[in-house]
């Protein structure tokens, strides 16, 4: 079964500070769709370097949302993009979709 996004890391950092949790989730909800759009725009025209740059940013959010295996996939994909290969694209985009759906529920 595929791992699912969760708030474990955020709760670990917050030490029970709900205000911070809401603030951080708000930032992620705001930043993630923008970064996802930037990624899609760059990968669509196969701009490898800019795609790798935005994957680098997105992978931090992947790790914040507790997706350990997905984080490894993102690391490999970023590396592949820097080598001008799109190997791993499908897996990475499936991670983005899972996060998109998760963010709609919180």
């Amino acid at each position: 079964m595929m791992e699912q996004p969760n708030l474990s890391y955020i709760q670990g950092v917050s030490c029970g500070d709900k205000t911070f949790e809401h603030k951080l989730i708000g930032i992620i909800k705001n930043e993630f769709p923008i970064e996802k759009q930037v990624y899609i725009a760059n990968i669509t025209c196969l701009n490898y370097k800019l795609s790798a740059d935005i994957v680098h940013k997105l992978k931090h959010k992947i790790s914040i949302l507790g997706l350990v295996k997905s984080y490894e996939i993102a690391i490999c994909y970023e590396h592949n993009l820097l080598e001008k290969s799109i190997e791993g694209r499908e897996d990475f985009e499936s991670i983005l979709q899972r996060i998109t759906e998760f963010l709609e529920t919180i």
Partner: protein
Amino acid sequence: MNSIIIDDEATARAIIGQLCSNVPSLNVLGEFPNAMQAIKYLNSNEVDLIFLDIHMPDFTGFDFIDTIKNPPKIILTTSDPNFAIQAFGYDCIVDYLVKPITPERFQKAIKKAEVIKSVAVPKVDSSKVETSSGSDLYVNIDRRLIKIDIPSIYLVEAKGDYIYVKTENKNYTVHSTLKKIEDRLPDSLFLKIHRSFIINIDKIIDIEDNSVLIKKDVIPVSRSNRPELIKRLNLL
């Protein structure tokens, strides 16, 4: 300790800010989304500690450190563990935190920063590849800057934390990265044909399937780099 946070991601700034708020000895004076804004701030304010992201557009964390005079203590924050060796070249860097940063690891870094009292200017990074004129490249080997004539280089190979630079007359082992030397070599002459190899196109003897013969070395060409290599050849 008065501190500032430099990171282009709002998410990262918020997390570091929260981690700082749990440390009574830390006082966060400001958060900056890029190095340039932080430099402006530092021109008129003194801080004891900087949380600095490495991977930022236009101006990296290392560019930032190289720019400021007498840098305060710096804790690097990054998603990429591959810069650790480069970080050790700077006396001002007290720790290196890989994202996502856990509260426990953060506390450890703060303790280190509190213990380290003396902070020096950055020493010369032993891995640094310097350039002077357009045709020379200076490499730092055992504290000596050795001049290499760029057109004489026919092959650069990445070997762990080192690069192996082969020239017509001599070979050099330099503590650096392929990326760093790639940035210093002219695109018109050099091409990365594999994640571990950069070649001088003028020195190619022949190409067979997925390998290139250059001098006596047979170098693999990765599938993704092959189209660019073919494009650069004067094919009949």
